[in-house]
């Protein structure tokens, strides 16, 4: 394609953008809103995930053993557990060690003079926090295991929340993307209408369909790109502010560093352009008949 032709396409596109400025602004606003919503939910969910990783790494399974168990059986169990897939670490905590820990936690020797009531146990860490429940279930089945405990419920609940945050975000984003496509396709329709004489002449002169299409596609993509850039800028600034605020005020929670956000930025611009191209190709097909 000639440089001259490309210049022509862009000139035509920008002329239309300016001519339909109100519709153009509406299109940009729609794309920006769709992506800001998508972005907010995305950031919310990745941060949730991130925070959860911290929590999860503390979630471990404790398997209490029956008191009567012999040393041999205990060693065998340790081997068996280590062989279960998904288990990262198995640590044996003897009655005595458990008592020491207990004393440390409580600070005083409450159990002085009584026979140690704490059972032997294993502390088990898993690779994937999603598997905690599954692994616990498996461990429970071994004979010699009296009781299995883990942060039951919490993990599932948190995962559930993340799941819904994602789903709701996605649903809202789909609705907004559809609205964006609709508005953009109407904007392009105005352009097609304004230029119908020209298009008619172009076709008689022997313009290819793609030559006729490009300016409209570019117009749509530019609208999408401006909208998504706006969304990225707004989200970026807001996230930076949030990050700093959280860091200063709630030091326990560590949000994903702002750099992570940049990874998404390009994807967002891409989505914006796609929405624009889709919206305009919709109109071109319907109203241009080329």
């Amino acid at each position, binding site marked *: *394609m*000639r440089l*001259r*032709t490309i210049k*022509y396409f862009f000139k035509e596109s920008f002329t239309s953008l300016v001519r339909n400025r109100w519709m153009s602004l509406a299109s940009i606003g729609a794309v920006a809103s769709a992506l800001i919503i998508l972005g907010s939910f995305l950031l919310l969910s990745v941060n949730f995930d991130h925070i959860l990783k911290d929590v999860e790494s503390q979630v471990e399974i404790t398997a209490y053993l029956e008191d009567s168990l012999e040393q041999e059986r205990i060693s065998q169990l340790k081997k068996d557990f280590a062989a279960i897939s998904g288990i990262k670490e198995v640590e044996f905590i003897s009655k005595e060690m458990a008592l020491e820990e207990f004393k440390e936690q409580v600070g005083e020797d409450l159990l002085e003079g009584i026979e140690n009531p704490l059972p032997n146990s294993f502390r088990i860490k898993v690779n994937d926090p999603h598997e905690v429940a599954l692994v616990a279930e498996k461990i429970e089945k071994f004979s010699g295991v009296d009781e299995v405990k883990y942060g039951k419920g919490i993990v599932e609940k948190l995962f559930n929340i993340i799941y819904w945050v994602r789903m709701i975000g996605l649903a809202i984003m789909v609705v907004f993307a559809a609205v964006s496509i609709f508005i953009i396709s109407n904007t392009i329709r105005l352009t097609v209408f304004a230029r119908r*004489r*020209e298009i*008619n*002449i*172009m*076709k*008689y*002169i*022997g*313009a*290819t*369909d793609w*030559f006729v299409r490009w300016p409209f596609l570019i117009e749509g993509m530019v609208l999408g790109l401006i909208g998504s850039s706006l969304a990225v800028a707004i989200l970026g600034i807001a996230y930076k502010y949030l990050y700093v605020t959280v860091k200063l005020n709630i030091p326990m929670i560590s949000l994903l560093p702002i750099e992570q956000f940049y990874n998404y930025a390009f994807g967002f611009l891409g989505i914006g352009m796609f929405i624009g191209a889709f919206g305009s190709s919709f109109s071109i097909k319907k109203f241009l008949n080329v």
Partner: protein
Amino acid sequence: MIEMYGVTKIYPGGQVALKDISLKILKGEFVFIVGPSGAGKSTLIKLLFREELPTRGQIFFGGKNITRLRPREIPYLRRRIGIVFQDFRLLPEKTVYENIAFAMEVVEAPGRDIRKRVPYVLERVGLAHKAKAKPSELSGGEQQRVALARALVNNPDVLVADEPTGNLDPDTSRDIMNLLDDINKRGTTLVVASHARELVDSMKKRVIQLEKGSLVRDEERGVYSNET
């Protein structure tokens, strides 16, 4: 250059616009298509540049069957045909120069060629001094000259014109006809649908007469006549 074999055109509503037309137009010819209103002149012109497809029959352009073209190939057929309409169809917001250059941009001609070719065709239609004017600042005859220049700028093999003088007074019409004759003398094949009886008669060109969709007369150096 152009051959039609048994061409019939029936519009979707059932209107028969052309009935079993066969004809041959040679390279370099100047042909008038005449006939009363509704005879099918415009339809015949439209078949040539694939605005319409015949219901039956075959049409060849430069040896190629254009009824079998894929949609993708149509633009390349049209680049070999300059098209002129009764209502000029110029772009009002572009200058005369830009209107003509536009036709070259659309077919992706190099800028160098555009800068050379546009002044040349403007000169040929006698409008070099109006290059910067907008169509609204021109007379009807001048506008039609611009349209002619635009149709010529890509150097087509054939120029087709549907009532090119339909909106012009007799004197201006004659000027345009002379210009068409001049274009033809330089080698472009011309197919012109026209109502202008005296004008057609005075040109002494081949005349193809249609009536209710049928070809009723085809004469070298003919005259427009309604008596049958």
